[in-house]
């Protein structure tokens, strides 16, 4: 540590070059920070302590098939089940049929299954008391400038009402505030009453069916057994089910959406390969220029290994400096990107895992990049170097 100022001085010997290299490194790690955030947001969706307690039961046939409402009572008495709620896809759209707003028709206790989505006691009561009441995610409220008490029209692109019209009217009675990034999705959706939906929808369209059940279990460790027991309830019937933990269900959707790991991996591979070359070249230049200075150091009594260490430390310091600036920049930019994407992206900010992976990468790249120049510096022959040979 006592040589720190020496290394620092060596690093900024050529200010322009070091600054330019630092910006390149920062750009690479900015990209790393952002892409890693995308990857984690895919990986972590549905993975939380509360999420692990929840099981999702849907039709085994396909996601558009429905299940009988009566199944809920049977699930409720399966040992290990704490509570069960259900929901249906409503297919809402606001103003324009293509402007989709995710809307679920849910049972009264649905929101209790999600303790990490905060709903005020007033809103809860108002929701239970209002037949056409809806709870709206906070992001949606902002996006459309809705207020509690507003009456809003929603079109369903699937379900007509008894009179044949697909325009439904609802009263906003409360707001959903997700308190954890794993349920950020609930900031963008609308919940309505399943009971009202089933009553008001045109005959033949729903017939008391539900889309999926959400079950909370008493003990996370028993989740798999409970899931099997729930599926056993309707085995060999015409409505066989598939029950998965929330994490597994979300992971399966995400995987179908895109192989994010592969895409991110190949981009980062290309980026870091380029970066290695770039910084490696800078370090080579830096050492080549300083040959005589290094020889002087050796003449003064610095050991071969000391010189090796100093050059390595210099390259590691350079990559670390640039990298930390880059990831820091990513941490600052990501909330802005999420906010501007209009709800399409919900990126978590750079977490501890990304930071540590990033710093590990910086150390490795710094060492690899510094290896050859440091080796050269170590093998330097004092007489030759001072003679400029």
């Amino acid at each position, binding site marked *: 540590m006592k040589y720190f100022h020496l290394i620092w001085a060596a690093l900024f010997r050529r200010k*322009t*070059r070091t600054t*330019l*290299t630092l*910006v*390149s*490194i920062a*750009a*690479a790690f*900015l*990209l790393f920070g*952002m*892409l890693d955030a995308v990857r984690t947001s895919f990986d972590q969706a549905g993975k939380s302590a509360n999420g692990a307690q929840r099981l999702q039961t849907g039709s*085994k*046939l*396909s*996601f*558009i*098939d429905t299940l009988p409402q009566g199944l809920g009572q049977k699930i409720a008495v399966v040992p290990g089940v704490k509570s069960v709620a259900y929901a249906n896809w409503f*297919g809402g*759209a606001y103003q324009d*049929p*293509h402007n*989709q707003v995710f809307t679920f028709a849910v049972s009264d206790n649905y929101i209790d299954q999600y303790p990490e989505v905060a709903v005020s006691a007033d809103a809860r009561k108002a929701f239970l008391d209002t037949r056409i009441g809806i709870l709206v995610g906070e992001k949606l409220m902002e996006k459309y400038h809705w207020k509690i008490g507003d009456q809003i029209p929603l*079109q369903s*692109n*699937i379900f007509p009402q008894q009179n044949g019209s*697909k325009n439904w009217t609802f009263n906003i009675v409360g707001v959903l505030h997700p308190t954890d990034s794993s349920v950020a999705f609930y900031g963008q959706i609308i919940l309505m009453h399943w009971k009202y939906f089933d009553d008001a929808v045109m005959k033949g369209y729903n017939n008391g069916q539900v889309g999926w059940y959400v079950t909370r279990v008493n003990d996370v460790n028993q989740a798999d057994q409970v899931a099997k027991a729930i599926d056993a309830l309707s085995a060999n019937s*015409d409505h*066989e089910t*598939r029950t*998965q933990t929330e994490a*597994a269900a979300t992971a*399966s*959707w995400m995987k*179908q*959406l*895109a*192989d994010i790991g592969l895409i991110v991996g*190949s*981009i980062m591979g*290309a*980026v870091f*390969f*380029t*970066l290695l*070359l*770039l910084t490696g*070249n*800078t370090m*080579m*230049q830096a050492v080549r220029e300083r040959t005589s200075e290094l020889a002087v150091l050796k003449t003064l009594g610095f050991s071969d290994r000391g010189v090796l260490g100093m050059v390595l430390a210099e390259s590691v310091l350079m990559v670390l400096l640039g990298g930390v600036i880059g990831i820091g920049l990513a941490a600052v930019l990501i909330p802005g990107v999420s906010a501007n994407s209009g709800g*399409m992206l919900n990126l978590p900010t750079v977490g501890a895992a990304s930071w540590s992976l990033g710093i590990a990468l910086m150390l490795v790249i710094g060492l690899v990049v510094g290896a050859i120049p440091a080796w050269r510096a170590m093998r330097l022959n004092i007489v030759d170097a001072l003679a400029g040979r």
Partner: protein
Amino acid sequence: MKFLFNLLVLVILVVTLFVWVQLPWIAVLVLVALFAAWMGLTRRGRQAASVTGVGVSTLKQRLGSSSVVVIGIAGVVGVLVALLAMGEGYAETLQKTGSADTAIVLRGGSAAEVSSVLSNDSIVVIEQAPGVARDKQNKPIVSGEIVVAANLPVKGGGPDDDGSVQVRGVGEQAWALRPNAKIVAGRSFRPGMRELVVGQGAQRQFAGLQPGHEVKLGTQTWDVVGVFASGDAYDSEIWGDANVIADTYRRGSSRTSVFAKLTDAKALDTFKASLASDPRLQVDVDTTLNYFSKQSEGMSKVMRIMGITVGSIMAIGAIFGALNTMFAAVATRAREIATLRAIGFRGVPVVVAVMLETMMLALLGGLLGGLLAWLIFNGWTASTLAAGTTGQLAFTFKVTPGLLWEGLKWALAIGFVGGLFPALRAARLPVTTALREL
């Protein structure tokens, strides 16, 4: 004064880049021709050419640092082209699905086939509408179709690894409506039987879809009897007889959509108007070409934005890498450049020479990156859950000449920015100081 000059350079840079992005290839060609003429015909130009020649001849000694420019830019162009090729391939798959002379009829206000419902009565009315083409037996070429989903095990996945596939129940006329779709293995399904033909894309993606195998669809077991290829979005689907599929999925006689062959593309208006004026119907009509193209819009926009964002960040890194290399190159050649200027060469040839050298390296990098992207990614198969469908849509990356051209333009832009500042420094270096240096 110096500040003002720098500001001016920056403004010129921004304007140039803006114009450059918009430039069609013809204009670029003209620009190159003009530049070559200048180089060959004027005194300054010839000076610039000879200075460039000297610079290029010393490239060999700076192989390591010059390759940084080439490889850095190759990385940017490669990633950019690959990401854009993904969006292009996705959009193309949907855009070549359907044709201008077939119409799709959905219930009014339905965003996609799967959310639409049409009763049997409506279908009968649609069949008799004017503008619909008829076959030799004078039957209208119309197919009432039903789109549902099925969970099937993914190829190479775990035991519980299911994916969603779009299942389409089609009428007899489905093949006449889609001349692209051809059976390539086995045979077609027989009406009234629980038999399926699978698209090539679906077969690649899901396990057990070989002819002769059985799959579970709904609550029943079905036989796979054939494979069809159409080269578009239908490739990711599984087809069966509409009546049998409707029974299995308890849809009765209703269908999700009606496809109709029109007498020609102009008949759409007549067809549309007659359906719109019919009080028994409340439907949306569009050509199939339009319908499928529209489905691709949102997703391909997202893919394009993603590609350009990643490309821009990488480009910033590459620009600074190029700056670094070229500043170093100018610094090592400071004496040589100063000598040239001392014996009467003006600033312009020096600037041009340094810029030209950088742009040549950039061009090389761009070509390399484009070539790599083409070699690795052209024809690469990927899949995603597409908007408006119930299953995975398989598509291949398409590295088109247009994308390669765009990549080259990026490469040259990076080279331009990376070369400009070192070139200006070379030209503005006080001759006396430079000559005295080292």
